């Protein structure tokens, strides 16, 4: 029984990271109807930022979270200005392909600049934390990752749902022309959405450096889950992404306990099952 509980807890902890990674993806989709296939590479950029903050200046991944967030926020802004802005209003296929191009380009850039070697931050502070609650062991890195991810997810949700800025971004996403008539500059809101999504994703990248290694293909691990989480929660729904992230994590944790080679199969299978019964995902509206 404790075994199952332990597996479930581990799953929920990693699930909250999936949720944060998915939040950036679903934010972009909700505002612009664009699925960003370069999202995993944004996580990867955050991981490298965190690694270099440690190897060059000696900052712990927890301390350098703002650095990771800001750097990937800049990446997101540049991506909007350079690639996404020009393809807005073109065919959906063109938009998808553009983000694919960015994915390949960023992966190539990382490989070119930093070689395919994996890079790990050693002796993170979080290693020192250990919590036993009723026979369930909570590892420091996992605990820190999950806590940070939940806080950041809540922050993004609050920003989008509770502030005037978030309202303006959502308005521009719902009806560009009407928003413009209300004095909102839609293009600026789109750019801001990319910066916010980038920042959240960068923080996710920084958090996972507590337990994972950076490499040019490091983002792949998270992005596949993020796609599934976004679609399962309903494209565009931040709350849906959070719920779906935790659900997928829990399923992975429990299945991993009994058949470790089928964790991903189970996660993808849950997604297919839900979406076949409810084609808009758990909390999607479109």
């Amino acid at each position, binding site marked *: 029984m404790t075994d199952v509980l332990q597996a479930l807890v581990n799953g929920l902890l990693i699930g909250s990271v999936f949720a944060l990674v998915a939040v950036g993806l679903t934010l972009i*989709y909700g505002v612009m109807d664009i*699925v960003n296939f370069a999202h995993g590479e944004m996580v990867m950029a955050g991981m490298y930022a965190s690694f270099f903050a440690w190897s060059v200046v000696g900052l712990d991944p927890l301390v350098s979270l703002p650095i990771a967030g800001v750097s990937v926020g800049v990446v997101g802004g540049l991506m909007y200005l350079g*690639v996404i802005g*020009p*393809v807005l209003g*073109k*065919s*959906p*296929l*063109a*938009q*998808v*392909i*553009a983000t*694919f*191009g*960015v*994915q*390949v*380009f*960023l*992966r*190539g*850039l990382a*490989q*070119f600049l930093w*070689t*395919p070697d994996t890079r790990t931050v050693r002796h993170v502070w979080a290693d020192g934390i250990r919590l036993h609650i009723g026979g369930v062991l909570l590892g420091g890195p996992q605990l820190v990752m999950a806590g940070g991810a939940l806080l950041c997810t809540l922050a993004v949700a609050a920003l989008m749902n509770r502030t005037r800025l978030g309202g303006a971004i959502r308005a521009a996403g719902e009806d560009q022309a009407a928003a413009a008539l209300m004095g909102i500059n839609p293009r600026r809101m789109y750019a801001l959405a990319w910066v916010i999504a980038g920042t959240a994703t960068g923080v996710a990248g920084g958090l996972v450096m507590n337990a994972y290694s950076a490499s040019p293909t490091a983002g792949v691990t998270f992005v*596949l889950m993020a*796609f*599934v989480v*976004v*679609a399962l929660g309903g*494209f565009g729904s931040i709350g849906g992404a959070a719920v779906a992230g935790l659900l997928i994590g829990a399923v992975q944790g429990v299945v991993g306990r009994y058949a470790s*080679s*089928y964790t*991903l*199969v189970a996660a*993808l*299978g849950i*997604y*297919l099952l839900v*979406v*076949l019964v409810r*084609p*808009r*995902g758990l909390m999607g509206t479109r």
Partner: protein
Amino acid sequence: MSVPVLERLTRVGPPRPPPRRSTRWLATAVVFAALAAYPLVLGDSNAQDIGIQALTFGIAATGWNVLGGYTGQISFGHALYFGTGAYTTAMLVRHDWSPWLAIALSLPVAATVAVVIGYPTFRLRHHYYSIATIAVAEIVLLLVTTTAALGQASGLELPIKEPSLANLQFSLQDKRPYYYVALALFGLVALAVMVFLRGRAGCYVRAIRDDQVAAAAVGVPVQRYKMYAAVLSAVTTALAGGFYVMFVLFIDPPSGLGLDLSVSFTLMAVLGGAGRFWGPLLGAWVLVGVQFLTRQQFSGSGRSVDLLLYGALIITIAVVEPGGIIALIERVRRRIRRSP
């Protein structure tokens, strides 16, 4: 150039004059003649490899194009059909079947897979469909990776046999026979796809792509025609997979079923021109060529410039002309014609 098919289906009055058929057939004949002449003009082994790979992936991407480009159902899981063709062929050839029979039998298998997957997933729209295709293909990849009979992660090797057309194996000194077999298969695919798209089916699937709800409203049986397109698409891509495994004599999960492979079919089709018949082959040729050349130039450094170039190329085409290289050529030609 989005063809207003719905308008054509619903319009009252005299139909537009049909396009001149003779010029179109002439153009097709010229392209095939050029393809047939290619290995005679460029004789070296690299050029042969580029040609064979471009034709193989061109066939697969042409298959993707039937469903993605013409019917508007963007699949990121087409490696599943490529892998179905490759694995079925590999298994049967390992049991001493003729490779031709094996490839032929893999086609109905792929068609069945397409129907089984299409039946539930075609209810999903837009991105939900695309993500579902990724999920299905990844599940199959993971299952194959753990199935002992399919070689698990280490893959399947095929026996080397006497070089002959019957064995579909030829000398590696001169790979021209492989090239011409691939070209013949492409010709077969071209015929099937052109016949499909010329008729009522072609009209219907384009209508589904342009506006599914409107198409259903004017009486297009949406699900049925999506399924027809999916079957033709799957069979075509499986054919490429079957030929590929006979050329390489090896298949493993990433090379036969990987997400990167699915994505590359999409990229080839879009680069050349999605929804245009020659787009996928042109895109395949350009991408395979770029990969070969950059690898040759920068090999050994471990720092791959090819990914950078490849990414930049894709971004450029998406930003400059989402219709692909073919649309770009058409645009330039129109501009030249207008200026005296």
